[in-house]
């Protein structure tokens, strides 16, 4: 893993998008896994909490739906396996089993879907010390194999529309939850009746 393009981009701390422009990170990530195609999303935020606190929260995958918009739930099997349920349009769900492939306490967690996933995907989250008093740099990298067919269309709707925006929002919600204990929202759903379209 350490020589993968994703890893190199992460270590250089350059925006992954720039790395993508230099080399075809997506293509390399696909080849590495024997996938026909891959999409890569990466993002770093600084969170005003210790590595240990952030790692502990993330390591319990049942917490992830609290800030990941599309993740309905994650059931934890044993210490390494988990089952992910993603809500898709029209009341459908997309599911997969994941296994943890890398686990360094207070530093790194990586996971990858196993055989039979509706969408093949892999994720990696790394926690590094920011300068003293500045908390922790949190870097997330998500790689997935955009599937064909009906499921592919659902996934396209969920992830491919703006995967970078999605990643940015999810890490921001993670930061908000970890720093303030809650995730700010401007208004409740049922207030939306008074709101019309963009003007």
């Amino acid at each position, binding site marked *: 893993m350490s020589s993968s393009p994703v890893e190199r981009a992460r270590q250089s701390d350059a925006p992954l998008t720039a790395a993508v422009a230099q080399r075809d990170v997506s293509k390399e990530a696909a080849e590495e896994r024997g996938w026909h195609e891959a999409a890569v999303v990466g993002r770093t935020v*600084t969170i*005003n909490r210790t590595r240990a606190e952030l790692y502990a929260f993330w390591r319990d995958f049942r917490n992830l739906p609290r800030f990941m918009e599309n993740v309905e739930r994650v059931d934890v099997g044993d210490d390494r396996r988990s089952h992910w349920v993603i809500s898709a349009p029209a009341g459908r769900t997309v599911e997969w089993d994941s296994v943890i492939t890398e686990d360094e306490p207070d530093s790194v967690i990586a996971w990858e879907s196993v055989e039979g996933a509706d969408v093949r995907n892999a994720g990696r989250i790394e926690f590094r010390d920011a300068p003293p008093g*500045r*908390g922790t740099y949190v870097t997330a990298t998500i790689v997935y194999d955009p599937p064909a067919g009906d499921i592919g269309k659902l996934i396209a709707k969920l992830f491919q529309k703006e995967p970078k*925006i999605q990643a*940015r*929002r*999810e890490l*921001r*919600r993670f*930061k*908000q939850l970890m*720093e*303030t*204990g*809650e*995730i*700010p*929202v*401007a*208004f*409740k759903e*049922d*207030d939306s*009746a*008074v*709101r*019309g*379209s*963009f*003007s």
Partner: protein
Amino acid sequence: MRALTWHGKHDVRMETVPDPKIVNPRDAIIRITSTAICGSDLHLYDSYIPSMHRGDILGHEFMGEVVETGSGSNLKKGERVVVPFVIACGQCFFCGKQQFSACDNSNPADKTDLSEIAYGYAMSGLFGYSHMTGGYAGGQAEYVRVPYSDVGPLVIPDGLEDDKVLFLSDILPTGWMAAENCEIEPGDTVAVWGCGPVGLFAVQSAFLLEPTG
């Protein structure tokens, strides 16, 4: 409740809208007793600010009585509070340095895309001031929901009338900061261009900051 809502250029309306509710633990609901119109509200009225939606409730200068609190609020029902227009979490790096207007967390994640792209960094949340700053309902209304209510609101002691403290919500600190930034020294002459309410507060602040040495 009744509230002043935005519908487009030079089109604001007093309408009946749903009452705000507690959403997050640190929220509080305030019954508005006084509110002001800011010069910045004119930018909304004249449609100079992007990301306004039809039906948005205006108003970022307000005060009132606490009528409901979430489990994480430290306010008490019946307390009178002035609410600063900047919403601040109190726990991010910037709030830790008392740079509340740069709060990292108060703008909801799905509202930060525009300022992140336009300015390179997301803005904090503000009351009643477009969706770029959070899309929060403002206080030109009967009630308002105040997020992170344990951070911003100032509790007002009995005996101080609304008119004496309302301007702590925005324009008095704005004028004060203008004067403070001047680092006034003995012998200085201070001139203030534009004596609207903020300018008048800058004049008063300059007198207060006048060195005695």
